C-alpha cells in the first residue's frame, strides 16, 4: 500500500472516498484487504480467500470512524501495552484514522473531572466498548475504584449504549491471575457482569496485538463480530491449537524431545513437551501470527507454552513445568492422548459455533455464573502425582 499519507480520515467521509482522495489505488487497497483476509482466513469461511478479500474491501469502504471507550479495570496494563505493539494496524494509524479513541486512561490527555466528562459524553452515544481487567465483586467493589466509583458500576454505565462489548485479555475474559485461587477480591470477567448480550473475548495474557486490532477491523468492516468459539473467542485466532502449527511439531511426531532446558535436544530445536509445554491444550494464534510483528513466540524461543489463552490457566496449567495431566509417557500413545485432549476442546468449540445464532441463550446461561469462578487449586491436591513423578525419575 502507498505509505505516503497526507491526511487522516475525518469522520463522516466514506472510507472509499477518503482512500481515493489520498491516492490509494483500488489495487493497493485490495492488496491490504487480502493480507487482512489471510489473517481472518485462519478459520474456514464461505467463499474462500479471494471472495473474502473483496468482501472486506467493500465493507471497509463504507465504514465510519466509530467512538471507542477502552476501559481499564482491575488489571496490569499489559493488554494496552500489547495493543501498542501492533504492526498490522499500528496504533497511531488506529487512533488517528480508524477509530476515535475517546476514553483510555493510559493515553488520554485529561485527568480527573475532565476525564470523567469525556467518558460521560462518550457513554451517551453509540460506541464500541473495549474492556481490560477484571471486575472485583467482593465487598461492594472496593478493590478497584475509578473516579470514586467501583469498576462494576463504571462498566455497567459504559455498557448501556455500547453497540458491542469486547473483553480484551484474560482478566476481562474471566479474571485471570487475581481470579486464581483464593480469589480474594471476587474477580470475574466482563461477561459475568454484562449478561444481556454476547461479549466477544480476546483471550490471552496478554493477547497478541494483532488479534485485538483485527477483531476491531472486522467489526468496522462487517458491523458484527467474527465467528466465535464456545468461549466467545474469534475463530480466526482461537480456532486451532498451537500444537497444530508449531514449528517443533515434526520433532514431536518423530519422538524427539528436550529432556532438560538447553540440553543437546533443546539445542537442536526439538519438542518441549517433556518440559511442560501446554501447546497441545491451548487454542491460540501464536504459531501463525506470532508475537511482536511476527518475530517469534514462546515455544519457538525455547520456553514451553503456559496455556495463557485458556480459562484459569493459573490453576489448570500449573505446575507450569510439569506435563499436562493424563499425558502418557512419550513413545507410547502420546499423540493419541494429546489429540484426545485437543479433540475434547475442539468439540466444545464446535458446539459453541452451533449455538452461535442463539447468542442470547449463551448470555443467559452465563448469567448463572455471576458468582466468581474459583476452581480447585490443583497444586495443593497433586501430592499423589508428585509422588508418582518422584518414582518415575
Amino acid at each position: 500500500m502507498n505509505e505516503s499519507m497526507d491526511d487522516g480520515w475525518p469522520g463522516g467521509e466514506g472510507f472509499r472516498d477518503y482512500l481515493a482522495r489520498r491516492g490509494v489505488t483500488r489495487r493497493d487497497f485490495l492488496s491490504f484487504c487480502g493480507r487482512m483476509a489471510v489473517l481472518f482466513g485462519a478459520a474456514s469461511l464461505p467463499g474462500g480467500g479471494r471472495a473474502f478479500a473483496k468482501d472486506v474491501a467493500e465493507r471497509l469502504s463504507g465504514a465510519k470512524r466509530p467512538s471507542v471507550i477502552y476501559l481499564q479495570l482491575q488489571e496490569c496494563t499489559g493488554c494496552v501495552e500489547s495493543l501498542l505493539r501492533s504492526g498490522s494496524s499500528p496504533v497511531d494509524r488506529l487512533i488517528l484514522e480508524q477509530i476515535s479513541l475517546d476514553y483510555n486512561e493510559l493515553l488520554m490527555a485529561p485527568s480527573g473531572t475532565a476525564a470523567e466528562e469525556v467518558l460521560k459524553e462518550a457513554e451517551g452515544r453509540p460506541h464500541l466498548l473495549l474492556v481490560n481487567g477484571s471486575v472485583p465483586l467482593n465487598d461492594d467493589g472496593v478493590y478497584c475504584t475509578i473516579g470514586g466509583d467501583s469498576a462494576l458500576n463504571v462498566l455497567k454505565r459504559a455498557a448501556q449504549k455500547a453497540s458491542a462489548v469486547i473483553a480484551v485479555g484474560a482478566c476481562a475474559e474471566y479474571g485471570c491471575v487475581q481470579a486464581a485461587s483464593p480469589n480474594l477480591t471476587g474477580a470475574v470477567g466482563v461477561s459475568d457482569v454484562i449478561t444481556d448480550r454476547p461479549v466477544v473475548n480476546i483471550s490471552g495474557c496478554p493477547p497478541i496485538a494483532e488479534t485485538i486490532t483485527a477483531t476491531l477491523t472486522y467489526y468496522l468492516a462487517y458491523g458484527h463480530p467474527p465467528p466465535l468459539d464456545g468461549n466467545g473467542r474469534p475463530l480466526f485466532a482461537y480456532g486451532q491449537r498451537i500444537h497444530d502449527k508449531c514449528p517443533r511439531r515434526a520433532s514431536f511426531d518423530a519422538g524427539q524431545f528436550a529432556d532438560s532446558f538447553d540440553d543437546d535436544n533443546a539445542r537442536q530445536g526439538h519438542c518441549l513437551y517433556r518440559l511442560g509445554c501446554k501447546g497441545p491444550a491451548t487454542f491460540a494464534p501464536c504459531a501463525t501470527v506470532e508475537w511482536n510483528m511476527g518475530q517469534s513466540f514462546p515455544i519457538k524461543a525455547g520456553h514451553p507454552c503456559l496455556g495463557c489463552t485458556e480459562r484459569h490457566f493459573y490453576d489448570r496449567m500449573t505446575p507450569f513445568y510439569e506435563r499436562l495431566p493424563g499425558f502418557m509417557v512419550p513413545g507410547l500413545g502420546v499423540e493419541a492422548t494429546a489429540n484426545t485432549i485437543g479433540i475434547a476442546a475442539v468439540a466444545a468449540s464446535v458446539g459453541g459455533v452451533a449455538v452461535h445464532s442463539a447468542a442470547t441463550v449463551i448470555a443467559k446461561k452465563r448469567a448463572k455464573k455471576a458468582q466468581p469462578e474459583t476452581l480447585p487449586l490443583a497444586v495443593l491436591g497433586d501430592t499423589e502425582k508428585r509422588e508418582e513423578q518422584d518414582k518415575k525419575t
Partner: protein
Amino acid sequence: MASERIVIDPITRIEGHLRIELEADNGRIGDAWACATQFRGIERVLQGRDPRDAWAFAQRICGVCTGVHAIASIRAVEDAIKCKIPPCAELIRNLVSGMATLQDHVMHFYHLHALDWVDVMSALKADPAATSRLAASVSPWPNNSATWYAEVQKRVAASAEGGLGIFSGGYWGHPAYRLPPEANLMALAHYLEALSWQRDIIRLHTIFAGKNPHPNYLVGGMGCSINLNNQITVNQVRLDEMAGMIDQAKRFVLEVYYPDVLAIASFYPDYAAIGASSPNLMATGESAWSCSGAPAGGVFPAALLMDGNYGTAHPFDSKRVAEFVSSAWYSQPEGDRQGLHPWQGRTEPRYTGPKPPFKQLSDHPKYTWCKAPRYDGRAVQVGPNARIMVAVAQGHAETVQLAKEGLGKLHAGIEALNSTLGRTYCRALESVILARRMDQWFAQLNERIKSGDTATFNKERWEPSSWPKQAQGMGFMEAARGTLSHWIEIENGRIARYQAVVPSTWNSSGRDPGGQRGPYEEALAGGGKHPLVDAKRPLEVLRTIHSFDPCISCAVHVLVPGGSGVEVKVR
C-alpha cells in the same frame, strides 16, 4: 480565598489506578493525599505454588513494568535454592531488562508525560519549516523535514475533524503551557515516531523470551538455547536482528529522547525547584541491574543519601526496611503503629474506607491500598533520580560527567535532581548510559558465543528434591521506576511466604504513624510552594505526579499470612 479540597481521579497516563486529593489556597498546594485504589492480591495467590512458577504469577503484577517482577522473582528463588546461572543467561537477562527499561523510559516521556508540557493544539499552528530548523539546532536526527512536520500536522488536524480521540478534553491553551508552537510540533512528531520505535526495538524480548509484554523467564537461566547451527535457536540471523534493534534503540535515545528532554526543560526551568520530595534517596545499583541475595551493587555499591545531604552515601542494609499500614487498608496482629520487615509481616486486606461511589477518601485515617515502606523510619524516594544522585555521590565517573553536562545546560546544582524536572531529566540521562551498556552486554555475549561458551541453563538445582526443606531468598532489581525487591520463603518445595517491595510502593505510599508523608504527597505539599493555578485543570499536579512514572498495580501488594510454627529469622 478559602482553601479548596480538590480531587483528581482518575490520574490518567499512569499504570494502574491512582487518586490524588489536595488542599489548595491562593494557587498553591497546602496538603496532599495519594490514594491507590486497586488491589488484586497476587502475592496471596502465590502461596502453595511451585517456586519455579512464581515468576509467571509475579510477572502479571505489571504489564508496563513487564519483566521486572519476573526477574526479581527468579532472583529470589535462585537466592533461596543457591542456584548460579551461566554467564550467557546473565547477559541475556541484562539485555532483556535493559531494552525494557529503555523502551519504558522513552514511552514514559512521550506517551505518558509529554502531554503535560506539550500543547497539541498549539502544534497545529506551527510553521513546519521553522520546526525543521529548530529540530536541526538540537539534534542530527535525520527524520527532520518541513514535509514531515506538515504531514504530522495534517494527520492530527484531519483526525480532529472526526473527534479528538485521546486528545479530547485536554487542557489545551492552559497558561502553564510555554513551548512555542514549533517546539510543540517537534514533540508531537516524536510522540508518533516513538510509537513506531518502541514496537520495533522490543522484539529483542521476542527472540530471547518469546513475547512482549510478559516475556518468559526460567529459574536457573533462560529458556532459549544458543546454537548457530540450528534454524530455530538463537543463531546468526537472530543476533544480526538484535544488533539492529540495539543500534536503533541507542540512536533514538541519543538523537531524539535526550535532546528533546533538554530542549523542553529549557522552557520550564522553574520546575527544577518544584516538586522536591523526600530528602532521602535509595538505589541498589544502576538501572536494569539485578541480583540474587542482598544487593552488593554493580558498578557502584548499594547506598542511600540521607536527610538532604546529597554528597554522602550511606551503605544499604536490607534489615532497616519496614512497612507500615497506618494509612493503608490492611490489618496486622501487631497493630497499626508497628512497622514490619518484609520477612515478618502478616498482613490481611481490610478495607475501612467508604462504600463506593464516594466523594472523598482523605477525611478517613486510612485512604489507600498502598503500604508505607520506610528505611530507618524515613520516607525514601527511589527511581532514576535516586540512582543518578547515588552514583554521583559515589563518584561514578561516567554518571558524574553526564550529570555535570546536563546540569550545566540547566544552570542548576545537584539538588535540582530532586524535583519534577530532575526526575524527568534523570530518566533521559540514565538512558544514555544504559544504551551504552547494551552495546557492552551484546559484545560480551558475542565473545562468549565465539569462544563456545553458550550454556543458558544450570540444571543442578532444578529439581525440588535438591533443595533444603526450608529456604529464604531475596532478589533485587533496579527497575525503570526504582528499587524493586522480591522476598520468598520456601518450605518442602512450595512457596510459604511471598513479598514484594516495589518502587511505586516507596514513592506512592501514604502517611506513616508519625504523620510523615509519602514521596508523592511530599512532592506536592512539602514546603507549600507547589503551584496549582486552576483547580479544574490541574496541569501542574500531573507534571509532578507523572515525573515519578507511577505504577499502582505494582505498588499494591499483600503479604502472605505466615505458616504455623515457623520461626522466621531475619537474614
